[in-house]
């Protein structure tokens, strides 16, 4: 049993527990509690709004209350959903790309050049990780407006700036662990800084790229307040569209709301299904290092 505890997966590590089925049963009950809210959203997305809310919320759709795809059609029209979805994808993809490219270069530089300047920059990045968004939100919105950064593309440098702390911090940590000899050898062979970085350092840092990309993507995809304050009011993201649907009509239109939530969750679940291993690994690495 104790032969190699380094690369065992839990399922193979121990001998099976006694009465394994009791454990499985108990956790299945718990898992049902976890799935229950999502299940409710799914069934209610197919019900008329009048049959949601109050004690009717948990009743399955009947012949009278089943509304087919009406909620989806209405929700998409009310929130201009596809435009919000497109904005969210655009903002997330471009910001994450900008963050991993720029901060990895910056992080490697800080790890290799030991000067007062880099120490100060590193300190400021670490400091920024602690500061809550409320501290800067008012002035940040104003700065962004004055620099014309209120479009989805404009949000990219804003995210790069506000997200620089954690990302750079993680890249510095990893770059410091790369042995210098490889890079020195490359330089003797005539590589410049760019050559060393893109040909040698970048491939070695691949795991950190994945970790940072996942952490930043989860943050930016779900972020509400920053885009709400910075973006021009013509643009919405998915969280903004959902919050808009809560408050715009005075009373919540629960049917379309549930439909929109389903549409918002599906991409997350697909993403989770495809890169579960990386997401979980990234979250652990981010928690332990951040």
């Amino acid at each position, binding site marked *: 049993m104790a032969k190699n505890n380094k690369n065992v997966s839990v399922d193979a590590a121990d001998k099976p527990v006694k009465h394994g089925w009791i*454990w499985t049963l108990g956790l299945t009950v718990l898992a049902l509690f*976890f799935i229950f809210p999502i299940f*409710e959203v799914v069934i209610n997305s197919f019900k008329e709004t009048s049959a949601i*809310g109050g004690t009717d*919320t948990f009743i399955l759709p009947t012949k009278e209350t089943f509304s087919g795809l009406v909620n989806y059609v209405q929700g998409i029209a009310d929130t201009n959903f596809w435009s919000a979805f497109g904005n969210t994808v655009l903002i997330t993809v471009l910001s994450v790309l900008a963050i991993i490219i720029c901060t990895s270069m910056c992080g490697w530089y800080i790890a290799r050049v030991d000067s007062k300047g880099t120490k100060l920059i590193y300190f400021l990045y670490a400091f920024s990780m602690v500061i809550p968004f409320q501290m*800067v939100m008012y002035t940040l919105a104003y700065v962004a407006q004055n620099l014309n950064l209120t479009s989805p593309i404009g949000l990219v440098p804003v995210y790069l700036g506000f997200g620089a702390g954690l990302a750079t911090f993680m890249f510095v940590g990893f770059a410091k662990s790369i042995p210098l000899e490889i890079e020195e050898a490359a330089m003797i062979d005539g590589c410049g800084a760019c050559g060393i970085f893109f040909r040698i350092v970048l491939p070695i840092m691949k795991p950190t790229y994945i970790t940072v990309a996942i952490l930043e993507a*989860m943050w930016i995809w*779900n972020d*509400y307040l920053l885009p709400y304050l910075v973006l021009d009011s013509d643009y919405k993201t998915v969280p903004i569209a959902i919050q808009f649907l809560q408050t715009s009509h005075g009373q919540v239109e629960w049917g379309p709301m549930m439909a929109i939530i389903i549409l918002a969750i599906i991409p997350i679940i697909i993403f989770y299904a495809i890169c579960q291993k990386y997401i*979980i690994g990234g979250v652990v690495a981010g928690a332990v290092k951040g």
Partner: protein
Amino acid sequence: MKRTVRRAFPLFVLPTLIAFFIGFIVPFIWGAYLSFNKFTVINNTTFVGLQNYAKIFTENDFVHSLWYTALFAIISVLTINIFGFLIALALTKNFRGTKAFRTIFFMPNLIGGIVLGTIWKMIFNGILAHWSTTIVSDAKYGFWGLVILMNWQQIGYVMIIYIAGIMGVPHELIESAEIDGAGSWQCLKSVIIPILRPTITICTFLTLTNGFKLFDQNLALTAGKPGKASEMLALNIYNTFYGRVGWQGVGQAKAVLFTILVAVIAFAQLHFTRSGEEQM
């Protein structure tokens, strides 16, 4: 080597640094300065010294939200970590379905705060309708609603970190404890928990900071209702900024106090993590 790299400063460091000034340094310094000013428009300010800070405490909404947030943070930190740890212990045993369970428990963590708040608002209103009331009719409902919501979202998150920690506990240690006649409770108390202390510190502080900074879930679930009774710190600051003309300076002063509070927690974490490492 250093010289070659140093020359690459404009390409390697400048893009991030410029964005960092736009996205953080300038707003931060300016925000700190504005907390000593009275203004409704950002470029027409009057210096008023500490008046904004004094004004915070002329009304009791900020102090109320401070206690409300602190109580929420403490209770949710305890419940999330206890449940997360117990589930992690269970899922590191060998029985059918552990992988699927891990996948399910972690999933809510990927869903954003606004969506989570909205989902749970529907669920809680559906349950409370049996007593003909709603989540926004009493701050207690909003409080426990938020505790349940955060448990649902973050149990899976800390569970994943605890699982990674538990799997790192050397088998030899547990085996030798068992040979010495330790029962499973003793094994947990005297072997596993002491080794996991750094992990426990990390998870406690992660959930604590998340609790104090909570905004989206609070906004979507109750929006602070009834009145301001379920308003947490971040939402209170937001409403002071954007809900009251002439109170922007006070909002910024509240944000400064909030920042100091969060920073103190972060330094406490650093201290605990470091002293934990020395003991290892």
